[in-house]
Structure formats: C-alpha cells, structure tokens
C-alpha cells in the first residue's frame, strides 16, 4: 500500500497503466545499477530517483571513478560548477538526495572492469550501461549474461544515438548480446574526438531511462522490445530499429 505522501509524489506516473500502484511498488523494491555517470548516467539516475526506484526495499547503485570536469557541464545535466574536481558518485549522490531522499543510494567510486563487475551486477534487477567505451561495455555485457541480468545499453556520439535492451538469458526472446554486435566490428575507441551535442546524449538517456522504468515497474510483463537495436538520428529526428540476432558460436551468449 502506498501512503499519502507517496501517492502525492508519484501521482502523475501512477496514472499510467504501465506503472500504476503495483508498478510503483516494484520500482520501490528494484535494485537498479547505473554504470557510468556521464551524460547518460547522470540523467538516467535523476529520472530513476525521481520515479522512486529503490525507495523501498530496493536500491540504486551509482558506479563511476571519474571526477566532474568543466568540459562535462554542457551535457551532464545533473552537475554544476560547485562540483568541479569532485567524484561524480559523490556529486550525484548529493544532488539526488535533494530530489528524493527516500531512495537508498549506494555509490561505488571505481571504474567498472572485469574484476569488479561480477560484484557490481550481482543481485541487480537490471543494469543500465551508461559507459563510454566498447571494451567496458563488452565487460558489462559479459557479466550480465553470466548472471542473467537484463541490460539496458545506450550510447551517443556526434548527432547519433543508439540503444538496445538485452534480456541476457532471462527471457524467451531469441536475440544476440553486445558481443554478437561488436565482436566483428573494428570500432574507433576514441569517442571523445568525435564530439557530442548535450541534448543528443540527453535524448539517449531519456530513452534508456524510459525503457528501464517500464521494465522495473512491470518486469517481464512490460511490452518493451528486447534485442532491437535502435539507431536515432538527431538531425532529422528519426529512429530506425533493427533486430540483433545471436551470432553463431558467440563466446559470451551461445
């Protein structure tokens, strides 16, 4: 049962059948993990906290070892000049507490890697990959497939954003994993050289937060699409969606 304060705070989203009271309870009890607190993660976390993810028996874990830099401020909407040089985990914790102090926030001020990821993702209801390199994304994918934890991936660069929801074994959908997508592709790792417009990464983050919230509210009853790779073009405002099939003999998911 939601109390009077909860009903008031979450009234606008409770009106949606995709959330409603059951969904809100699921949001309270969800354990969500946001990895990477840049343009994507700082905004995704803001929406999850606002929606009450982890405000009951659950939690919201924020993972990043980076500090706030002045060059971040054009796109990383949750930070401001008072946090320059501070750990992003601490800065975000401080800001998010002002939004919704009922959320059980946990911070891990470290860069996700092969060794700490099994611990970071364990017990998560879902993992939200907001990192910025292929190699880290591949390690997150590997850890989520191994632990069978649904994974929400989004990326942005230039004026393009891309996104995919991966069931990671916890669904009947036959789709590939992130390794299936990128293992054959030579990708230029240095993304910082391509530039990015603030609201473009914001569009990606808003999509990712929406997908994660719909899943966390209704779990596998949600109608969100799994294994569909979305390519968004911020210039003409279009998106295309392509099925991501499993790669035969994928060393991670097959």
């Amino acid at each position, binding site marked *: 049962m939601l109390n009077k304060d909860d009903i008031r705070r979450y009234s606008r989203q409770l009106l949606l059948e995709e959330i409603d009271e059951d969904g809100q309870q699921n949001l309270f009890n969800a354990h969500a993990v946001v990895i990477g607190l840049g343009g994507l993660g700082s905004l995704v976390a803001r929406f999850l906290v606002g929606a009450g993810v982890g405000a009951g028996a659950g939690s919201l874990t924020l993972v990043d070892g980076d500090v706030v830099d002045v060059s971040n401020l054009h796109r990383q909407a949750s930070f401001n000049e008072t946090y320059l040089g501070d750990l992003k985990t601490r800065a975000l914790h401080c800001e998010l507490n002002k939004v919704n102090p009922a959320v059980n926030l946990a911070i891990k001020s470290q860069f996700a890697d092969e060794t700490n990821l099994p611990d970071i993702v364990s017990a998560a209801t879902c993992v939200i990959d907001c990192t910025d390199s292929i190699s880290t994304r591949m390690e997150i994918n590997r850890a989520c497939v191994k632990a069978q934890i649904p994974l929400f991936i989004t990326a942005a660069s230039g004026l393009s954003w891309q996104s995919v929801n991966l069931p990671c074994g916890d669904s009947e959908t036959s789709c590939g994993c992130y390794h299936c997508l990128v293992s054959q592709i030579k990708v230029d790792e240095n993304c910082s050289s391509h530039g990015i417009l603030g609201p473009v990464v914001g569009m990606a983050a808003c999509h990712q937060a929406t997908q994660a919230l719909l899943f966390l509210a209704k779990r596998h009853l949600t109608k969100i699409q799994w294994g569909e790779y979305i390519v968004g073009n911020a210039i003409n405002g279009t998106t*295309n969606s392509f099925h991501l099939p499993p790669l035969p003999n994928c060393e991670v998911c097959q």
Partner: protein
Amino acid sequence: MNHTSDSHISIENSRQRIELVVNGENKTYLSPITLLELVMRDALRQEGTAIAYNQSIVSRCQWSNTHLKDGDQIDIFTLVAGG
C-alpha cells in the same frame, strides 16, 4: 534510361539489374552481389560499420555470404559507444 549502361549489361548477360533500398534510397546494382561486395563497390568505410539486411543486423563474417535480391533493404550505420 541510360543506353550505354544497358548495352554494357547485355554483354554480361549473366548479370541482372536489381534495385536495393540502401539507407532509404533506391539504388540499382548488378546481380549477383553480396553485402561485402556492396560495401567494397560503394567504397564504404568499414571501421565501426554495422549493416542491417532487411531489418536484421548481419555480422561482418556473414557479409560475404549474404546474397542480395531485388527489393532488399540495406541499412548501413556507424556504431557509437560514447556516453
């Protein structure tokens, strides 16, 4: 109609014209052609390139044995990873 290229095709009578929709645009190619040959022919940058064939992503190792037919839809995009 371009008569020069038509007569050129009639010489190569084993080759047929097919229309493909590449990134939303109708384009004419000579069949048989694979996905890899299309990428090579159009001199597309292969670094970071992903391809969807009729709305399904095709891994790079399958480009050379994906034979294109008239009306097929090809979407070529660059994978991004920033955040």
